Structures are given as C-alpha cells and as structure tokens.
C-alpha cells in the first residue's frame, strides 16, 4: 500500500516536473485575429477566457481560418499570402509558408488532407498538404478573356471539391481534387459582373456568389452542375439609386431558416430575403446601414447583422419569424465580426477600435463580459471544423 502510494506520488511529481498540463479537448476552443499585430489569441468559450497568444503570423489585416478535422490545428490565411498552421493546444505556430503575394481566404477539403488558398496576386488557387504544407496543386485563374483574375469566395464542397469565383473575369470554377495531381476543373463563364464573395449551403448543395457589379447573385446547384449557373434575385433594387459601399459585404456562413435565406444587399441598407424553393425575392428588411455580415444563430431563430463604415459601431438583431429588427446594440466603433458559440447561447463580437471582444447573451442581449484583444477582427471557433463550407 505504502509502496503504491509512493509510486503514484513520484509519478505525479514526475509529470509536474515535466510541465505536463492537464488533458483537455478542443471542442470549446477558438481564435480571435489581432489584425494589426499579426497575431492571434487562442480562447475558450466555456468560461470565456484567453488561453494564449501566437505571434509571427504576418499581415492579418484581412485574415480567416479553417480547422483540421481533429480540431487541434488552425490554418490561417493572411493578406500577405502567408499560410500558417497553429496548434491550439500549445498556442505555437508549427508551420508557415508564404505562398503568394496577396491572398484573401481559404478552405479545407472534405477529407481534411488538403488546404486551399485563394489569391489575388498571382490570381488563382494553390493547394497544400495539411500535414506538411507542401504545395500539391496550382490552379492559375485565367478567365476566358485570357487575363488573370483575383479569386474570391473559395469554399469546400462534397466529393473532395473546391468551388471559387473569379472577381475580374466573372466566372465560377469547380475543382475536383479526387486525384490531387490531376485536378479536374469545370469552368462556368459569364456568371455575372464582379462576384465579390460566395457561400455554400450547410448541406453543400448550393454555391451562391454575390455580385458587386449588378443587382443579384449567381447560383450553382452542385447536385446538377450540368444545368449551369443561374442568376437569382436579379434587379432587386431596379430604378433605385445605389448608396456608396464603404466595405464589401461578406457572404461567410449561411443564414437560412425553414425555406427562407438572407443576404446583405449591395448599395442598399437592407437585408434581402429569398425563398429557397424558387430563389425568388420574398422581402427586404430595412436595417441601420450597409450590411457586412448577416449571420444566423445556430438555431436559425435570429440573424445578427453588422455594418460598413461609417455605421460600424452598431449591430442589429433580426427576429426570423417576424422578419423585423428586434434589437439594436452599439458595442463601439469598428465592429468587425461576430461568432456564435456552437449552440448559440452566446455571441462574441469584435470591437476593433476599442481593442475589445464583447460576449453577449443572445436571449437577453445582456453583455456578459469583455476580453482585451488588440485590434480584433475575425473570430473563428473550432466548431467550424465539422461544417461544410467553413
């Protein structure tokens, strides 16, 4: 008995002296981008704390992240073309490659083996092995006009595919990476003027690109790619003067409830409502400014909307059943992003100019607390690891 005790004591002393930290899961972890300092904060959403800070990630002024399928590693896409892999458990940057001159975002493949980056300079998509960050495929985005195009709206899709849009050329490309050394590309040309971002539905069926150069969105049904791309919500503001857009809206995520889908209007202070059976316009909800993100709470009962400059101090909440704004919050200047906890009881809001991330209760709208984060922008929770298109 005494011997056993001594053994277990010495074992615990050994593990202490080796600096072992208690085992933990990654399911409640995530990260917040510090856009001006090239760093991230690793956080957890069970007691709302900052766990660590990772530096040396380059220019994160426009940055996003996806997660490995085990949830442990985040892949960060920086403005400077940097692709970094960060271990959430240790807070360490484990790998970094500068793979292009200027990038906008990325995606992880269905099987978790490939990470794709969409680039502005040189325009195209580059694909890397997630374990080594070695380049495995390079897809230059040369439109049917023969010119290189900036790539936006890159997402993963079922069947080991990536889908993305060519901003300058007005095209949507579908890349099948089943055979990684021979990517199969299907090109859809003349899909619309200046697709600026895109999303894919949670079931991976519909890819929808927003258009900056004209009213409407371009829709590709991945169950029926042979039917091609069609335009939806065309002429939603016909005959009305457009308002200036001081920041491009983002179509990240997917706001859908029952058979309604929600999109930011471009050049109008409205959220558009579409019927997902017909893809026809069902309504327009007036809001405080030019919407940037229209995010649905995981239960789809609420939409949270933030706005472009000069209205970026405000967040509005739309109640889905009544299609009405039920709450207006003013967290402070520079609200960049919002992220819901996996089951939606809280939302984290980054307030860039206040160097603060605020946590709100989504039922009572009560502010539960704040975390000090330097010039926070994107917030990415690890629950994204298992969602198509995120």
């Amino acid at each position, binding site marked *: 008995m005494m011997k056993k005790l001594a053994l277990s004591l010495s074992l615990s002393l050994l593990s202490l002296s080796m600096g072992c930290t208690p085992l933990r899961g990654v399911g409640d972890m995530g990260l917040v981008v510090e*856009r001006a300092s090239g760093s991230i904060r690793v956080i957890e959403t069970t007691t709302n704390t900052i766990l660590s800070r990772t530096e040396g990630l380059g*220019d994160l002024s426009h940055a996003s992240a996806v997660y490995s399928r085990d949830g442990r590693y985040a892949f960060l896409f920086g*403005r400077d073309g940097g692709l970094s892999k960060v271990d959430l458990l240790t807070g360490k940057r484990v790998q970094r490659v500068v793979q292009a001159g200027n990038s906008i975002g990325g995606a992880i493949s269905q099987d978790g083996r490939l990470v794709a980056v969409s680039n*502005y300079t040189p325009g195209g998509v580059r694909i890397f092995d997630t374990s080594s960050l070695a380049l495995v495929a390079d897809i230059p985005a040369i439109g049917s006009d023969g010119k290189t195009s900036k790539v936006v709206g890159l997402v993963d899709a079922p069947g080991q595919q990536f889908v993305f849009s060519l*901003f300058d050329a007005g095209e949507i490309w579908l890349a099948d990476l089943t055979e990684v050394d021979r990517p199969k590309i299907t090109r859809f040309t003349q899909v619309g003027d200046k697709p600026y971002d895109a999303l894919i539905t949670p079931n991976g069926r519909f890819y929808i690109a927003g258009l900056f150069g004209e009213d409407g969105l371009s829709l590709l049904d991945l169950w029926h790619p042979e039917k091609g791309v069609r335009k939806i919500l065309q002429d939603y503001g016909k005959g009305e003067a457009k308002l*200036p857009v001081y*920041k*491009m809206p983002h179509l990240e995520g997917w706001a859908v409830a029952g058979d309604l889908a929600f999109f930011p209007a471009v050049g109008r202070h409205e959220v558009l409502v579409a019927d997902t059976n017909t893809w026809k316009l069902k309504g327009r909800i007036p809001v405080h400014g030019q919407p940037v993100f229209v995010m649905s709470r995981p239960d789809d009962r609420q939409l949270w909307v933030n706005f472009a400059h000069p209205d970026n101090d405000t967040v509005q909440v739309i109640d889905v059943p009544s299609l009405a704004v039920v709450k207006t919050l003013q967290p402070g200047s520079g609200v960049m992003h919002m992220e819901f906890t996996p089951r939606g009881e809280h939302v984290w809001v980054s307030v860039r*100019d206040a160097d603060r991330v605020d946590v709100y209760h989504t039922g009572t709208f009560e502010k539960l607390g704040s975390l000090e984060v330097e*010039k926070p922008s994107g917030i990415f929770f690890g629950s994204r690891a298992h969602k198509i298109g995120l």
Partner: protein
Amino acid sequence: MRAMRIFFAFSVLSFLAVTSAAWGGQPQPLRQQALIHLLKHDCGSCHGLTLKGGLGPPLTPEALSGKSAEMLADTIAYGLPATAMPPWQGLLSREEIFWLAERLREGVAP
C-alpha cells in the same frame, strides 16, 4: 503712415489665413490621427492595412507615382464609377481629402 502699415500687415495676414484654410490647410492634430486610422483600417479593408493592395489596387508612393494630389483627391472625393471605389465626399471635407492625398503621395508609416 504707421496706421497704413498696420492695416497692410493685417490684410496680408488675414489673406494668408483664408487661403491656407482653402488650399493645403491642415486638419487639427486629433483629426489627423483619426484620418490615418481611417486610411489604415477602412481604406485598408480593400487596399490592405499596409496599403499594398487587396481587392483595390496598392496605394504606395511607388504605385501612385505620376499621379497628382488633385487627381488622387478627385478619386477619393468622387470614387470611380463601375468599380468598388466609393465617393468619400459625404464623409470627408475637401481639406481632409487633400491632406490624405498628400499623405498617400509621401507614404504612410506602417
């Protein structure tokens, strides 16, 4: 004669005060800070925080060489139709726009 001289000096001074406000006048220091913040973070959402470009073209002194302050100011004020560049004249005064154009031409410290 003395009165005349004083009057003359006063007119020159007031002329200078008026013209400097209209041409090349400087925003107040606090406002200058706010404008630089706007340039980095809001212009930067398209042109990059370091102004090396994004969806919008780079705005570094090299990229803008050969473009006059007037031309840059007009682009900021009125935007560029058929592109994503919006007009800023409703949000910024002419003086502020000119001041920003000058900062862009000389380069903004990161």
